[in-house]
């Protein structure tokens, strides 16, 4: 029994990890682009982006998952059901929803970080003849990274746990894997056991973030 449980939990956890990493891969860069949009000097862009961020952060991720997965087919007719009916479609829909959602949260963290860098840093780079992108990548970015590590680690640890929402559109992640044993054999401990997976993985992340923070601790300011 124990082995069967572990096998299924592993399978579920693999899916959890997949959602986690794919979301990071998409949301980390997309968030930067969104943050640029929300700081744009071109008003329409700025307000458009800010509205999207407001909607995404203002509604539950669960609702967004449902809308993104069922929306196209149910609203525009079955021929617009872009996700298809198979597992792949569900997985892609989950990733799309997670990436958009997390990119919006990340964008606000980035924006806070970028705006917290004093104007003098930009100007010092400019008067030395650097281009705007050189100033951003060589002077500003590293300082931003240092400042946003704590809020980002918070958000990323939340992401690990949020992946469990994917089951709402029938993606077989670890909590579903654990819960299925209640129905099949009446055992509750597999469900509780999923907590161990989360704890261990988040423990690992905490160590990694601690390491990065320490690495960047060689300077102040």
């Amino acid at each position, binding site marked *: 029994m124990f082995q069967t449980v572990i096998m299924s939990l592993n399978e579920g956890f693999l899916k959890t990890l997949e959602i986690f990493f794919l979301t990071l891969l998409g949301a980390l860069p997309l968030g930067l682009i969104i943050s640029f949009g929300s700081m744009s000097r071109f008003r329409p862009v700025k307000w458009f982006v800010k509205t999207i961020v407001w909607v995404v952060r203002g509604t539950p991720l669960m609702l967004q998952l449902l809308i993104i997965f069922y929306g196209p087919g149910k609203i525009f007719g079955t021929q617009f059901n872009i996700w298809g009916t198979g597992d792949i479609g569900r997985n892609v829909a989950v990733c799309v929803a997670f990436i958009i959602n997390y990119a919006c949260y990340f964008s606000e963290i980035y924006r806070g970080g970028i705006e917290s860098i*004093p104007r*003098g*840093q930009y*100007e*010092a*780079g*400019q*008067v*030395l*003849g*650097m*281009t*705007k992108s*050189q100033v951003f990548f*060589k*002077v500003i970015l*590293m*300082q931003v990274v*240092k400042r946003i590590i704590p809020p980002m680690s918070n958000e990323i640890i939340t992401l690990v746990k949020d992946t469990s929402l994917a089951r709402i559109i029938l993606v077989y992640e670890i909590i579903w894997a654990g819960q299925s044993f209640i129905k099949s054999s009446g055992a509750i401990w597999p469900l509780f056991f999923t907590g161990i997976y989360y704890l261990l993985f988040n423990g690992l992340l905490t160590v990694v973030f601690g390491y990065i923070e320490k690495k960047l601790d*060689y*300077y*102040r*300011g």
Partner: protein
Amino acid sequence: MTCLEIKNITKKFGDTKVLRGISFEMEKGEVIAIIGSSGSGKTTLLRCINFLEKCDTGSITVNGTEIYNAEKRDQYSDNYIRKSRLNFGMVFQSFNLFPQYDVLKNITLAPELMQIKRKMPDTEKKNIRRQIKEEAYELLKTVGLSEKAGAYPCELSGGQQQRVAIARALAMKPQILCFDEPTSALDPELTGEVLKAIKSLRDAGRTMIVVTHEMEFAKNVADRVIYMSDGIIEEIGTPQQIFSDAQSEKTRAFLQKSNYEF
């Protein structure tokens, strides 16, 4: 030889006219000190000269070439402004060193970005890097900080940071070096070392514009002194003329108020 010619610069922020027609010329090797009360537009003037602000009217001519004319301000590309800026160096009141880089890298970063192109062969890149580094060590020596090359800005005193900022500005080989109150953010006992560094630059023949509240320094180091008031040059002359024989009532009142003892 006229090195810099500023003609009729004006600058408004919203409805406030901060600069109301500034014109002056300076010779190569000359040091001009700008004094004036808070809000008179000294910083804004330096920022216009360095293109951190774009002035509303007026022109800037360096070595006989007009590099900026406000009438064409919308035609200048970012790239053109960036290149024109290299005529000037700027040292800020608050140093603005890059905290994540050590002293050496603070100085070499901009020259490396400027000179090293991606397509260059590696040996050439290495040679350029080495030369930039050698020059940086040379500059550190002139500001008396050779032993601090590997230190981070947060490990330095304010006076040391400001001297690094001076070396960093010099690394781009500007024609004219501008200082905006380089000692105002420093504890009194640290101003001396920075002023000494500036003085030695003068002795080396650097062309400099120094905005300062240090009257003693302006008097002893500058070739000419500009007194600014309400966005105009109220009076310009040798330190002797300004400090001992000011023509304008305003200048005299200002000097009295800043406790300058004749």
